[in-house]
């Protein structure tokens, strides 16, 4: 305990280190690391708001600028970009139903509905507050429990990941607000689409039609932009000019009411827990955390029919989860030196360029780097709240812009964003194609969110299933003989039964009535 406090003190000392700049006769002390943190958070928020351009592309673009900076400062700035993007992504999800980041897809479900009801302000504010709380808690987790949590993560082999993904699929079933059959259909469609690309074991192309751009599969952002962004625009343009505007009712207040806060608090707590745990697992990440949190909220709520129609818990839970996951995903990087996702891999690269070799010994050999980064996470979260809460008014007023001016800007930003991922015009074409698909889905009352979850889970499920089978030499029982895997599968079965119970009960009642 004492050690932890001493280390945290070291960390904060590093963050608030004053660098003296000689300006004429005065030596001006500036806390440079705080400045870097602020810059990173600002850039990250902007990136998160811009649909398509993600934290991966931004960090890659900004890597050369960090060459001249001191290592700790550079890493603090890059980290700030990462979780800044998580914050910013929720802004567009709520305002215009376009997820700025993959992790904000779930926020569109209730967040945008709240915006349509004139409650964009409370939605944005709760997202910021929930994210801040989650950030604080998960920072403490990273500081205190980094090493033990890593050893748990290491126990997760391919069999456990597969079972976790099966659990995730069951979550997707619960996500649906409309017809269950249609939701299952959407999940399966998402799974099928995720099969496009190269086979992991043999490298052979599947469903690529010989097009080289498809050999790595279809990008998630591309699908999300098409199905959410473009389709939504087409649908809005089809509607009459009055109902086309985003706002259907008057804007009622910018801050959450007492009732909002009361409802959101348990959701924030649950979301933080879920996000912290899932974030540690390499590969699973913030996307699954946000979906899981939404599902849990819907399950435990006394009025699940409110979800998908503007329930504030549906914003608070996922937002807390994805921020918590974003922070705890640093754990495998800082304790093991193994990056759990693409952004962390970039951080490894940044560290390597600065001559720091990330690995199990960073904690002991470079304590000021390690604890400095952890302390900067907390400072970064604080800054993000400070930046975002006042901006809520600005964002909300954007909704008043007439749609005929709003939608071309959305189209342009989305297209630029999609193009910037791979510098590939083909991606934009695919997104447009998915726009058409998305429009068809909307007209026929299908929900895109389960499809996207299936799309994310598909490759993870398939790869881990095959890896587990390879290692077990074809023995299917491996999923039940390994304890963690068995536990996850049983939970999934239990949840499935729970989800089906209302259906069975209704049938029985119908039979009795007859």
């Amino acid at each position, binding site marked *: 305990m004492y050690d932890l406090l001493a280390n945290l003190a070291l960390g904060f000392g590093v963050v608030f*280190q*004053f*660098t*003296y*700049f*000689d300006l004429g006769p005065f030596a001006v002390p500036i806390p*440079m690391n705080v400045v870097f943190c602020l810059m990173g958070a600002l850039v990250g928020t902007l990136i998160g708001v811009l649909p398509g351009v993600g934290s991966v592309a931004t960090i*890659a673009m900004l*890597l*050369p*600028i960090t*060459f*001249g*900076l*001191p290592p700790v400062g550079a890493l603090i700035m890059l980290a700030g970009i990462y979780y800044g993007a998580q914050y910013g992504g929720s802004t567009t999800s709520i305002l215009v139903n376009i997820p700025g980041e993959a992790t904000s897809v779930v926020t569109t479900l209730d967040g945008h509905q709240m915006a349509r009801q004139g409650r964009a302000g409370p939605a944005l504010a709760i997202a910021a507050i929930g994210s801040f709380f989650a950030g604080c808690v998960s920072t403490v987790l990273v500081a205190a429990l980094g090493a033990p949590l890593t050893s748990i993560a*290491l*126990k*997760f*082999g*391919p069999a456990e990941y597969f079972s976790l993904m099966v659990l995730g699929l069951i979550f997707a079933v619960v996500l649906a607000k409309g017809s269950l059959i249609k939701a299952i259909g959407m999940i399966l469609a998402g799974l099928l689409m995720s099969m496009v690309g*190269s086979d*992991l*074991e*043999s*490298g052979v192309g599947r469903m690529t039609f*010989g097009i*080289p*751009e498809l*050999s*790595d599969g279809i990008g998630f952002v591309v699908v999300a932009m098409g199905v959410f962004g473009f389709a939504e625009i087409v649908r809005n343009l089809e509607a009459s000019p009055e109902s086309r505007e985003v706002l259907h009712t008057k804007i009622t207040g910018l801050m959450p009411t007492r009732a909002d806060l009361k409802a959101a608090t348990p959701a924030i707590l649950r979301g933080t827990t879920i996000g912290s745990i899932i974030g540690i697992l*390499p*590969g699973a990440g913030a996307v699954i955390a946000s979906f899981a949190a939404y599902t849990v909220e819907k399950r435990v709520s006394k009025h699940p029919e409110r979800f998908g129609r503007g329930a504030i818990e549906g914003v608070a839970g996922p937002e807390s989860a994805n921020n918590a996951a974003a922070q705890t995903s640093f754990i*495998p990087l800082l304790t*093991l*030196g*193994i*990056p*759990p996702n*693409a952004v*962390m*891999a*970039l951080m490894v*690269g*940044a560290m*390597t*360029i600065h*001559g720091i*070799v*990330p*690995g*199990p*010994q*960073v904690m002991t050999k470079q304590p000021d780097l390690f604890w400095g980064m952890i302390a900067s996470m907390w400072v970064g979260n604080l800054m993000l709240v400070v930046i975002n809460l006042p901006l809520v008014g600005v964002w909300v007023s954007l909704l008043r812009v007439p749609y005929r001016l709003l939608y071309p800007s959305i189209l342009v930003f989305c297209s630029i964003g999609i193009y910037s991922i*791979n*510098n590939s015009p083909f991606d934009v074409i695919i997104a447009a194609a998915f726009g058409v698909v998305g429009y068809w889905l909307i007209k026929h009352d299908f929900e895109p969110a389960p499809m996207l979850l299936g799309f994310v889970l598909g490759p993870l499920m398939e*790869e881990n299933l095959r*890896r587990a089978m*390879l*290692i077990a*030499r074809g023995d299917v029982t491996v999923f039940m003989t390994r304890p963690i895997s068995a536990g996850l599968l049983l939970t999934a079965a239990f949840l499935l039964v729970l989800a089906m119970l209302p259906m069975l009960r209704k049938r029985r009642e119908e039979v009795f009535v007859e």
Partner: protein
Amino acid sequence: MGHNSSNGRYKAKGGDLMSLFRFIAGAIAGVASFAVQPAFAQSDYPTRPVTLIVPFAAGGPTDVISRIVGDYLSRSLGQQIIIENVVGAGGTTASTRAKNAAPDGYTLITGHMGTHAASVALYPNLAYNPSTDFEPISILAGTPVLILAKKDFPPKDAKEFVAYVKANADKLNMAHAGVGSVSYTTCLALNHILKVKPVTVPFNGTGPAMNALVGGQVDYMCDQIVNAVPQINGGTIKVYAIGTPERNPALPNVPTAKEVGMPEWEASAWNALFAPKGTPKPILDKLNAAVVKALDDETVRKRLLELGSEIPTKERRTPQALADLVKSEVTRWSIVIKAAGPSN
């Protein structure tokens, strides 16, 4: 940069702030100069920023090496070298794009052992020919590959490893970072030499593969030194041999493949600079001279050696040496990959 003053506070010189601003200004200017594209004479090359395509994600060994050398080239050539990461299909997407780029010296590519040698055997419909579609400029740095195993793998040294693997091949799980990756091709070569066929377990990149190795879910793998050193020093994995002719200063206790009786296992992932076919010779010569100088520069060498990479000798830094290397590597990997047969 600044210095530590006597009371321990970091005292920056005014120059530090200036150099920071200069960097940012330089980056902005570099991007802004795209707007201006005057006609140019070849002797003035380069007159605008040069794009260096890297076929892998930012942060990996090839990317880091490209950035270190590119940083020096930016200063010595007077124009920014802009790194563009084009990920996909084991690096072949980027290589195809580089092949189709205008041969004016403003698009270059860092190819490596996978994209410009092994790909010929791995991808039957490869859209380019590494030997004929590119102009070789110079080899850059190579990353040595090591034989690694999970912490509780029974063999204690390389000789025991060879015996154990030969005896238990069908029970062993070998991890790799995906078909076409360095870890895949070099371990295939190892298996070819040992004449074994263990089960190969694919992962999406070295991160997950290393994770599985540390967690003990797979038995062994071949990986580049950059990824392996932190784990070896942290005691989370075992190492048996390195695939270069000489021991590496980052890991002085690891014997070479030659020392342990496997001299045929040459495993060092070479990276090299290429330009599209048809780039004018004066430009190629200028680039070659710049790279040769870069690899002699103190700072560049220091950063490369910190990564554990091996810096080629001056004789190997000629375009002809690179062309010969590509040819011999294509043949070598074709044999290894065909011998491995269809992947299980």
